[in-house]
């Protein structure tokens, strides 16, 4: 019983970290231009397809030596992040930037339209079927095989991999936003774009950089999705994106640590619902949580004053 509980927590934590990567994309963009970037889930989906294609292209396969796999995966990670960052900034340029002074409804609808475009790009590119990728990173239990413990709890190499990719990215992002000059420009723009512009900050460039970061994180999440969950499909982005958005709202949208915390909490909710309730109800529960938060505490767990907006 206790083992089952711990196991559920471990699964929830590692899934939650992937949610967190995508949730950060929502939170960054919402923080800076107050747009729910509906297309973000599909950027993640395309990221997973790009990662899939690249991994197949460089010939990563389960039999390879560990060092070689690690090297190739790092290269693929970099290329995927660069491509999704480019994609995301292109979306901003084409769909959102011209609408910067339009009513709030306009960019939101443009984002929904963009989401459909990206989904269909995925559909046309890879077809309607699920893409499966083999277990390059073994699914073996580290606790029993390496540490030789006699336990029913399992922590797999894959889970360690997911943590090893996400945590450094989260640390770097936090450092970037809170310590660098560009991060300061982002915070200033988020607070008041007009004044930031008057202070000599290039607002367009700062917003573009925010989209680049969000896109890169979505790409990283896409690679983790392929190597950790071993599958992708054109419609993956919508559900996953909604989960990630829920995470962002859960933690308090616009708040970076909140997005990570929200992702982890949502991962846990998902894992517990799958385990102790039934998987087919998990979506209803996630949305129920989302509605409950927005209604009762729109500022999220870590939240901030959103009284005017929400």
């Amino acid at each position: 019983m206790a083992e089952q509980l711990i196991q559920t927590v471990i699964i929830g934590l590692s899934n939650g970290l992937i949610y967190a990567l995508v949730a950060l994309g929502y939170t960054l963009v919402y923080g800076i231009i107050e747009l729910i970037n509906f297309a973000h889930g599909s950027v993640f989906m395309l990221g997973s397809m790009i990662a899939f294609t690249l991994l197949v292209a460089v010939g990563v396969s389960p039999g390879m030596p560990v060092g070689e796999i690690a090297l190739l995966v790092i290269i693929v990670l970099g290329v995927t992040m660069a491509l999704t960052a480019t994609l995301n900034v292109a979306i901003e340029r084409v769909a959102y930037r011209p609408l910067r002074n339009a009513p709030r409804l306009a960019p939101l609808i443009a984002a929904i339209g963009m989401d459909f475009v990206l989904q269909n790009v995925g559909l046309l590119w890879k077809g309607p079927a699920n893409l499966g990728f083999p277990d390059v990173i073994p699914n073996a239990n580290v606790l029993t095989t390496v540490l030789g413990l006699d336990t029913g709890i399992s922590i797999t190499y894959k889970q360690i991999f997911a943590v090893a990719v996400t945590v450094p990215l989260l640390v770097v992002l936090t450092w970037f936003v809170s310590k660098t000059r560009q991060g300061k420009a982002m915070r200033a723009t988020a607070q008041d774009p007009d004044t930031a512009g008057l202070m000599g900050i290039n607002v367009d460039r700062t917003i573009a950089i925010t989209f680049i970061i969000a896109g890169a994180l979505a790409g990283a999440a896409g690679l983790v999705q392929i190597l950790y969950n071993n599958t992708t499909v054109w419609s993956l982005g919508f559900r996953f994106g909604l989960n990630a958005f829920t995470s962002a709202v859960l933690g308090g949208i616009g708040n970076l640590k909140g997005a990570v915390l929200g992702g982890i909490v949502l991962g846990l909710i998902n894992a517990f619902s799958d385990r102790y309730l039934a998987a087919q109800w998990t979506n209803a529960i996630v949305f129920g949580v989302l509605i409950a938060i927005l209604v009762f505490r729109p500022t999220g767990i870590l939240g901030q004053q959103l009284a005017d907006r929400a």
Partner: protein
Amino acid sequence: VSSLITPVERGQTGGVSAWTAHVLNSAMSWPDAYRSALRERRGRTILLTVLVILVFTYPLINRYALQPFSRNVFPLPVPDDTTVVFMLIFAAMAVGLNIVIGFAGLLDLGYVAFYALGAYTAAYLMSPHWGSFGVSLVLFSDVPPNFPGIHLPFFIVFWLAAVVAAVFGALLGAPTLRLRGDYLAIVTLGFGEIVPVFFKNLVNVHFELGPIKLVNANLTGGPLGINPIDAPSVLGIKMGVISGFNAVYLGLAIVLLCVVIARNLERSRMGRAWMAIREDETAAEMMGVNTVRTKLLAFALGASFAGFAGAMQASYQGATTSDFFMFSTSILVVVMIILGGIGNIWGVILGAVVVQYIDKTLLAWAGARLTEIGAATGNPGFRDINPSQFSFLLLGIALVAMMRFRPEGFLPSRQRAAEMHTAPPDQAIGSAALLDDSTGADNLGTPAGDEEAEPATTPDQDEEQSP
């Protein structure tokens, strides 16, 4: 709200009998009204007359004049009866969602939930579904008596479906309408996702409360949905999917009903309150508009139109399953409104007709032509292109392009067009002090260590004064 209406107007809301007299009066005097309209606005009246005649004779023309020749004579394909019925079902929904988005300015992304609720209400009240619970109730229906399940006539079920949808609209609205803008969009989206999940999964329910005891009860038909559902019938004339164009007239009647209701709402005191809220909620509230009640009514009334549409869908097709009610359907209706012309009833109907036509008729036709070209040229590559699968790609591109180049749609309402081109200062992106009042350095937009952040509600003076 009282400041919004004049005493004379208030005097006119004089109960059912006065209303009936008013309706009869206007029905009797329409030839006079028509003549004077013909005198005063000749071109417009003639155009409208032709349009109405065309719409009501279309099913006949379609069956006897267009369908037999469509491939040879006309450059573009003619929609079949089922497509036309769905154009009308979606037109009813577009008119309803237009109340929510177009009039009141509330973005509802879960409208499909109310469509589903309407459809399942009809399915419950017009099918053998409850037969397995030992229920048999046949009232004024052409089903034989003692037939298992509940069988009520369509024209009662139709209204009940609207009531159920409206009640759920109010239930969802009550706690959520305090939220603004995109937060409301997300909550409605979540609701739209939850409702079909319930319809899909409530298959073996165990429930015990006092005398009520359910064991392994199949409440919703699960993934298979509910069928067969009785076809709508008037005076013994069946109007289901197998009865040809009869159903088109039923659909037309439903759309007409929706248009009349929406048109009257738009011009009522409530309609003016909706528009006031849409333009500036705070100002509307200051003027005495009860914003929560007004928004709630927009939500519930808008939802009831989806109830009509759902009842029609279930009864017309004779089956309903949770798979009909996906997020993409909500978006489809939003697209119809945006393309057609947000805020304008005729615009959104045009949007519904055009989008359905492209989605159901034009793309399938294009696919068939491509296959023919492939066969004629001996190039099998053409056969593998299936334009129907591009429909959402096209809709997506249309949404993005419309927002950029013509955000008010093709047939906009004048007022709405003006709004879509110039944002009120406090609504433009990034201008509100959303992230002002935060405390952690990890918050975007927080000057680190700023302990005296201003409250988020403080309006930005400069922007308030700019025109």
